[in-house]
């Protein structure tokens, strides 16, 4: 006799299946939720920085019309071209002239809110175009930090009132601050710029690249192509893998204990910063380099050896050129990491207040992330926007570098 096969789709089964599908859906939604959360945080972070930062590229400026025909200031083009231009204009009483016309235009209260150094902006304009002294000209001079925060609706009541009245007359405006890209650090948020830090970063990165790239590539070539299988090679590999994972602050301690003991005069110089970051970047380049070299097929090596190339010629004439795009990608990513790094530089004293851009590799400097850190510590509200603006500049640099790395990878990546 034949046994009746029980129907599979019993109500109990149906209920269980429904539950299982519901669980499936929940799980899937949770996965999507995790991604959405991460992306939202990223967008929120970038959004906050951008919104804050847009203001940081501008500054509150006050209009001061100056009628030079009354002032009696002479600007001899020969003098204006020389380095004595500032001195000459100061001796002729330009600061008082600026002060006088500021009093005229803004009233005493308003004129007090122009920085004492504002005449230097006027002097620079005269030095650039001596013809100005023959006519009347309106200058936009930086407002004081107090007036600027009054314009933002913060700070004391008087300042807010003053800012409102000046703005109503069209004498106070927020303008795009070109000087932000050419000045260095200052104590007044109205006067700060990022060029000093940017130049420090560039100099530091040059040192890092000059040290880490050759050492990293050569070490990668040795380990991948020539190293005999023995204990020494294992030790080298182990130390490179460990260095890649050591916290960056430890490299700062090394720089402090070793480099600053050997070169005590170069405290906070790009040279020492670059050397410290090079030690940190080198393992990244070695690991990326080894992967790129490994990807070059053995047939290339065999072919070159077969036509009589020596092992060194095989590597330098054939393997290295083929692996170079991969190595460069790894190098750029390592350099991008070094560019954003702050902690090790904090250890070796690159946190000093540096009011002028560094001249060379051994003069005191600061770097872009360090500048962000220093500004974020400032109490003055005006620094909040400036910090965000500096962050935007830093992120743009990193974006360009990473974009370049991705471009190189896509353009030159070969599937053998």
């Amino acid at each position, binding site marked *: 006799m034949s046994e009746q096969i029980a129907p599979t789709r019993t109500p109990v089964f149906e209920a269980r299946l429904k539950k299982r599908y519901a669980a499936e859906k929940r799980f899937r939604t949770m996965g999507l939720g995790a991604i959405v959360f991460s992306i939202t945080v990223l967008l929120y972070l970038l959004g906050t920085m951008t919104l804050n930062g847009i203001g940081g590229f501008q500054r509150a400026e006050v209009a001061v019309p100056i009628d030079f025909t009354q002032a009696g200031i002479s600007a001899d083009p020969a003098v204006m071209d020389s380095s004595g231009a500032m001195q000459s204009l100061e001796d002729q009483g330009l600061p008082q002239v600026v002060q006088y016309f500021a009093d005229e235009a803004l009233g005493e209260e308003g004129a007090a809110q122009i920085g004492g150094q504002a005449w230097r902006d006027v002097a620079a304009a005269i030095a650039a175009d001596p013809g100005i002294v023959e006519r009347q000209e309106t200058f936009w001079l930086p407002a004081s930090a107090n007036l600027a925060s009054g314009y933002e609706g913060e700070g004391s009541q008087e300042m807010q009132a003053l800012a409102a009245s000046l703005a109503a007359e069209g004498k106070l405006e927020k303008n795009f601050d070109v000087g932000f890209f050419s000045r260095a650090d200052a104590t007044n948020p109205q006067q700060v710029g990022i060029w000093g830090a940017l130049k420090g970063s560039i100099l530091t990165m040059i040192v890092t690249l000059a040290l880490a790239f050759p050492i990293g590539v050569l*070490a990668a070539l040795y380990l991948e192509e020539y*190293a005999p299988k023995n204990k020494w090679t294992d030790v080298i590999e182990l130390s490179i893998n460990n260095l890649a994972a050591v916290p960056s602050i430890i490299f700062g301690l090394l720089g402090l204990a070793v480099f600053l003991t050997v070169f005590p005069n170069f405290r906070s110089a790009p040279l020492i910063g670059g050397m410290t970051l090079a030690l940190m970047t080198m393992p990244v380049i070695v690991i990326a380099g080894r992967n790129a070299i490994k990807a070059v097929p053995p047939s290339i090596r065999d072919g070159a050896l077969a036509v009589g190339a020596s092992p060194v010629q095989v590597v330098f004439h054939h393997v290295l050129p083929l692996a170079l795009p991969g190595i460069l990608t790894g190098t750029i990513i390592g350099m991008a990491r070094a560019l954003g790094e702050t902690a090790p530089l904090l250890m070796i004293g690159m946190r000093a207040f540096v009011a002028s851009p560094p001249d060379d590799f051994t003069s005191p400097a600061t770097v872009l992330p360090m500048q962000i850190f220093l500004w974020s510590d400032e109490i003055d509200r005006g620094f909040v926007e400036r910090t965000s603006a500096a962050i935007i500049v830093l992120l743009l640099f990193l974006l360009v570098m990473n974009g370049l790395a991705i471009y190189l990878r896509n353009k030159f990546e070969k599937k053998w």
Partner: protein
Amino acid sequence: MSLTLLLLLALGLGLAGWLAARARAWSFRRASPNGRLASLPTYHAWYVALWIILPVLIFVGIWSAIAPGLITQAVLTAPAADQLPAFGFQRQTILNEARAVATGAAQGVFNPLAREFVEPYREAIGRYNWIGVIVTLAIAFLGGVYAFLRLKPDFAARNRVEKIVMAILLGASLVAILTTLGIFVSLVFETIRFFGMVNPIDFLFGLHWGPDPMSNAENPDSSRYGAIPLFWGTLFIGAIIAMIVAIPLGLMSAIYLTQYANPKFRAWVKPALEILAGVPTVVYGYFAALTIAPAIRDFAISLGASSASSESALAAGLVMGVMIIPFVSSMADDSIAAVPQAMRDGSLAMGATTNETIRRVLVPAALPGIVAGVMLAISRAIGETMIVVMAASTAANLSANPLDSMTTVTVQIVAMLTGEGSFDHPATLSAFALGFVLFLVTLGLNFIALRVVKRFREAYE
């Protein structure tokens, strides 16, 4: 700057040697009856150039390290040196000021005594610059002439050059060992000095942290160097709060991206996660301090927690967790991808739904890799500096309340070394002891994690 000058000089001389040697080799080739050399002319050229550049580079490296000392020594023979304070901070300041003026880095001196040293400095710097240049030229000349005289038609220049190249390659890979050794030795050295002043037992097991950099360095109070609150703060922020955020989010993102997402979605989202990983930590720190910390404080106060701090462990930990998400995600991604497809197919063929397959087959099979990834993530979180420096506090609290302010090992390293404390003070040296502990812990975590990953990969290969 004389260093740049010397390097340029070395390169210029190397180029001259290169050109001369190549011309010489070509003349051999023309003179020889069959037009053949043992090596190509380029190798002769490189042989001479390397013999010029390498000795000069070694000399410049040593010289730039010892020259400042020699200059200072020469300056101290000046008559005014008797009036200098015997040692200490003031002596250094005066000498630094004088040197800055002598090299043109500064306009004038504040300290009248420093003026006495400007001239001796200028003289000594000038003299030693000349000595440096002359020795460089002499070394380059000797090296170049020695190599040049060895050039012959049957000279095996290529083999020699290749030998040198191999030595350079080996030297480059030894830099890694030297760096590791350098870290180890400098940390151990300073840590031993620290433990000479402070009892190690008090340091490792003490419950109170509050070094006073201004106290008498001769007789430090060991009971103020108890690092347990720092270790707890580090673990609480980096290994607990950050991981509560990063592990589920990172793991779920990896699962969704590898198992559910279509290729187009994946192609967009993966780079976005990589951007999250590429944001510099100082930006995260600023974000935490500016946005997250005040929000958490306000939220806590609205819930009735009046003691909520604006430097809470929660703010630093949350932002650190977000920073770690891409790291956990990519490690989990790799481990799940390493599980053989047959296991997944088998489970699906038995009628399991995708999530049952993931939870009961893929994740258990990938678990060793995921655990290793989490260990690497923890090692990264506890070594992270900028977020905690900017968003966590410097006050050491032993508390389990995430709204309390807490400090970490890295915060204290920064605090101890960026102060004005002297290098012989136990408070400053404690930073090296903390660094040493951090180094050992991260090294241990990485070592175990790499082992686990390796064994796990082998299991499925």
